């Protein structure tokens, strides 16, 4: 068959196809009728105010160490032993506030891990769960469950907490706070208001904390607040 004949046949086929597409566009409302959901405006729940129950390990301590972190993030995991050493060393002089910033797109099950840790908080085992998650080799449903069992959590209470979806709001609240502070990655440390971005070793965290304990810094801080 010559090119001209082939082109003629092809043109007829294409013209029919294009005509079909145009008819489809014109008659789309009858082919795909208005979708009916059976819902009224009252059925859509309003967004409730965000809540954040995390007040830290030692509220009122002179040093406040806030960490925006993700249990599955390599850099957050790198910082974990350093942070733990700091917490052990400063004891009751430091208030550690853990804020969730899970990045599900980068780290599998990061959001679920955050929810699981908040469910452990309900049974006063947040820090233990936090440590176990950072020490765990994998991050999946099996890990969450085995940690809960190892820590002696009430499993049925833990499961119903996860299924309720209530903790989602807490994670969201932390994530929103991160966004408001232009935090785009983890870990980020805030020591008495001073922001330190990225994975830190023990020495750099310690020097940042000691700077805050320095009498001159304390005076500057008080003056700054009163001015």
């Amino acid at each position, binding site marked *: 068959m010559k090119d001209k004949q082939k082109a003629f046949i092809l043109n007829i086929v294409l013209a029919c*196809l294009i005509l079909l*597409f*145009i008819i489809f566009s014109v008659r*789309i409302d009858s082919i795909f009728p208005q*979708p009916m959901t*059976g819902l009224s405006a009252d059925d859509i729940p309003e967004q409730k105010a965000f809540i954040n129950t995390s007040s830290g390990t030692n509220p009122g301590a002179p040093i406040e160490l806030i960490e925006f972190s993700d249990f599955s993030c390599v850099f957050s995991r790198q910082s974990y032993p350093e942070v733990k050493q700091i917490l052990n060393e400063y004891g009751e002089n430091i208030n550690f506030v853990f804020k969730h910033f899970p990045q*599900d797109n980068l780290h599998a099950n990061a959001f679920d891990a955050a929810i699981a840790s908040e469910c452990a908080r309900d049974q006063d085992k947040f820090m233990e769960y936090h440590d176990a998650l950072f020490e765990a080799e994998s991050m999946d449903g099996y890990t969450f469950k085995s940690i809960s069992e190892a820590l002696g959590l009430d499993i049925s209470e833990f499961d119903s907490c996860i299924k309720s*979806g209530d903790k989602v709001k807490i*994670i969201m609240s932390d*994530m929103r706070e991160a966004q408001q502070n232009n935090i785009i990655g983890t870990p980020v440390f805030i020591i008495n208001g001073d922001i330190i971005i990225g994975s830190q070793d023990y020495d750099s965290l310690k020097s940042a904390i000691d700077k805050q304990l320095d009498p001159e810094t304390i005076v500057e801080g008080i003056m700054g607040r009163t001015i």
Partner: protein
Amino acid sequence: MKIIKDISGQLREAFRLMTRKPALIAYAAISDILFILIFAFFSSAIYGKMLEYAIAASSLAAKSSAELGSIVAVSQTFYQAFMSIDGVNLFVYDILIMMFILLVGAYVFYCFFQAISWHIAGKISGRRKSYYRFIASFFKINIVWIIIYSVFSIIRLTAGFREQISTRPYIGNMLDMGFLIPALGIIIIYFAAVSYSSLFFGKKKSIASTISVGYRNFRGLIPGYIAIALIIALIHAIQVLIFRYSVIASGIFFIAAELPSLTFARIVMIRIMEDKNEKKTE
């Protein structure tokens, strides 16, 4: 310097050829404008309907947001959790059907009208090739980037649902899209460029050989592409400026200058490619 001289020579010659055949320029412009109008009508009808269905699915999921959060939390995938909500799956299947029709339509419209426009540009440049050769090449090569575009559309749809419906602020998805959009742009530009440059270099039997021929020749055509992009950008900037003062004048300028500039671009590319081809066979 030689490249600039060659390109400017081709630009001048293409302009001279265009002024000689105004009727063919008009045909090419009509083909381009028909493509824009028909595709705009077709795609806006489908997009509008897809949006209706997406809102319906979102509303159902919003009602079950707590449920959705908990399902996701017990480690199912988002897609499974989302589809398990009563009624949502039917809307999503309809959206996928509409998306499929949209993509097939885009493919057919694009190949058909582009083949006509390139065929006319070939006639104007005096280096004509049969219409069948053009359309067969377009259908063959464009299938690669329409598949890539389909995958991207599905990812974008899923991410959109995740972002809209989920009780979580999906920062992650925004990051995903941030990476995807330029990546898609690069892929589409690459395949578009390769498909054009493969049109004039011998008869190819498979998509793979078409791509490889297109890729080999594309590098030599980059200066031509840049020159044409600059000219079209300049004409478009003038049109935008005119639009500020008069919509009608801007419309006239679009028909009189912007549409023919597309044909001009095709003529330049045909000439550059054919010259390259001739040098190879000499």
